[in-house]
């Protein structure tokens, strides 16, 4: 008997007893359903995690100088002159070297003003306190990347400024038409506690949508501000950059870079570790729930085995006839195994479809709830990957085959004469 004929015969035998086959596969449906929902949820959550982290960039490293600079006593940002406590500073030469390294796409050096700096924005003769904003390259994990209200958020090497919406409001400037402000000249004023001031004239490059009053200026301008604040001329040479954000061509390269830079004595932070831990947690939960589904599938084998035992009892005479016509024991065994496998597979397909539909429904409902709770998350939570679909159907078929193993073996061993006498 050819395999094609065996498959066809087994399939038509399953189809002949539709209700019974459907009931037998019910356990498989439940088990598959559980597995599909749990694994697709895990895949969705993993995608969420990876997307959230990717929006910050896994290919990104933050390099800081090493040593006891942070913590201890002194003003935030550390004393400017206690160089001895800095074991390793990031010099301009380092930045130049990194820029030339293969696999490094972007190098963004950062200089922070000390936290004690009083910064004011001078506009139309009034001074309003503002904050020096961070760079745009480390947005909040759960937020969209910043969008300019007007102009550009990218600063020129020197002399440019980006104002936040909040800063405009604080300064009492009308925000109706932010575009008209682009190119206007404003002054950022540094004020010491003794009342000395220094103003820096800057040209407006763009308006950000941020609601807190803050301004952003280029690294060169911040170095100038810092030099004035500490009454120095070579603050960069002495202290180096406060941090450098490196962007690698890919995640593997980023990992290699972080190892190398750590060896060079810098502090390196990357998100890779967080992602690894988060994914490990998701995997553990997935495995747990998949086991529950797996147990349901194992229980389902009882249902299928029972159906097969009944079918073989009813068809004893048919088995005898087939044997008299020259069917071998192997063919009889394969025929019943295939039938059991089909019952399992049908259950698997049904479970997959139902699980997939439930996932689709929840994908519609969950964002509504999240919006209601004002939780920022985008994308699907249930993702049925092709490998999950294929895997679950194959597994269900395997469960069917497993259930058919013993009954089919029994059928194959029937004595043809006794089987023919069976009523």
């Amino acid at each position, binding site marked *: 008997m050819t395999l094609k004929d065996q498959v066809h015969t087994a399939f038509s035998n399953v189809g002949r007893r539709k209700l019974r086959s459907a009931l037998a596969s019910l356990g498989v449906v439940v088990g598959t359903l559980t597995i599909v929902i749990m694994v697709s949820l895990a895949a969705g959550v993993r995608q969420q995690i990876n997307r959230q982290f990717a929006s910050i960039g896994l290919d990104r490293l933050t390099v800081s100088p090493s040593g006891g600079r942070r913590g201890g006593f002194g003003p935030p940002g550390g004393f400017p002159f206690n160089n001895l406590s800095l074991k390793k500073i990031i010099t301009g030469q380092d930045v130049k070297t990194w820029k030339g390294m293969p696999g490094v796409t972007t190098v963004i050096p950062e200089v922070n003003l000390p936290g004690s700096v009083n910064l004011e924005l001078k506009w139309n003769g009034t001074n309003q306190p503002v904050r020096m904003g961070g760079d745009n390259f480390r947005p909040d994990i759960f937020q969209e990347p910043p969008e300019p209200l007007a102009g550009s958020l990218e600063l020129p090497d020197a002399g440019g400024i980006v104002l936040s919406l909040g800063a405009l409001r604080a300064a009492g400037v009308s925000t109706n038409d932010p575009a008209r402000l682009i190119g206007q000249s404003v002054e950022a004023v540094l004020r010491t506690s003794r009342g000395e001031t220094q103003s820096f004239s800057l040209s407006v490059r763009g308006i950000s949508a941020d609601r807190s009053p803050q301004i952003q200026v280029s690294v060169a301008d911040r170095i100038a501000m810092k030099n004035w604040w500490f009454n120095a001329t070579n603050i960069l040479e002495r202290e180096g950059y406060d941090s450098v954000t490196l962007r690698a061509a890919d995640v593997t390269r980023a990992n290699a870079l972080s190892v190398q830079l750590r060896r060079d004595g810098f502090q390196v932070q990357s998100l890779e570790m967080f992602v690894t831990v988060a994914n490990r947690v998701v995997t553990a939960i997935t495995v747990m729930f998949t086991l529950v589904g797996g147990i349901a599938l194992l229980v389902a084998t009882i249902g299928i085995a029972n159906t097969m035992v009944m079918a073989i009892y009813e068809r004893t005479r048919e088995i005898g006839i087939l044997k008299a*016509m020259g069917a071998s024991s192997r*063919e009889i065994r394969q025929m019943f195994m295939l039938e059991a496998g089909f019952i399992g597979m049908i259950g698997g397909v049904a479970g997959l479809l139902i699980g997939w539909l439930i996932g689709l429904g929840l994908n519609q409902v969950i964002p509504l709830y999240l919006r209601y709770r004002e939780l920022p998350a985008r994308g699907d939570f249930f993702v049925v990957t092709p490998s999950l679909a294929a895997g679950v159907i194959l597994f269900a078929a395997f469960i069917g085959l497993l259930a058919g193993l013993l009954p089919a073996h029994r059928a194959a061993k029937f004595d043809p004469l006794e089987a023919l006498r069976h009523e």
Partner: protein
Amino acid sequence: MNNFLIHAIKLTRHYRVGKTEVAALSDVDLIVRRGGFTALVGPSGSGKSTLLNLIGGLDRPSRGEVSVDGLSVGAATEQQLARYRRERVGFIFQSFNLIPTFSALENVESPMMLAEVPKRERRVRAASLLESVGLAQRTQHKPNELSGGEKQRVAIARALANRPLLLLADEPTGNLDSKTGAAVLELLCQLLKAQGLTLIMVTHDPEIAARADHIIHLRDGAIQKIEATRKTEAPP
């Protein structure tokens, strides 16, 4: 080529019933030539069916051996026996033994499916076999939609499907009324003549046995006598 199709030597078959052993067949020596019609007669329990089943490879001897067309049934492997039944033997049963869920055509096709005959070819052959047994109009009917005589005709067509050497019939007319039985017997005899088959038939009916070339009389598991009918008593 060996002129003997069936050769049995000291063929013995015991059955165990509880603690006692019952000899269904003991020390039977038999030679059957190729071609022709042999009837097995005898009272019930005489071992007719046992002998037929041993010849057909549905059963194995307890002792002794029967070889058919060179295959020793007792010594053959399971696979060899299955192949032997598939390719060289056609069974016809008293109770027809058609597969109830298959149509007449599918029943005739099924031995060819086991023999891996391509679908198109076996469909054509099954249809022509059904035509040759006079059932051209009944191919799509299920067994329960056919009369007893029609069922036995389907069974005969099925037995012939793989062009066997040997037809083994166990009281093929036993479940039929005498008129239908006579028609089925007539059909068998015609096919026999046309195709040069060897037919061995178990029967109770002396009239049917009289149509055979040889009659083997069995009693208590042993051959009582072998009667040659037509060969010696040529019709006037």
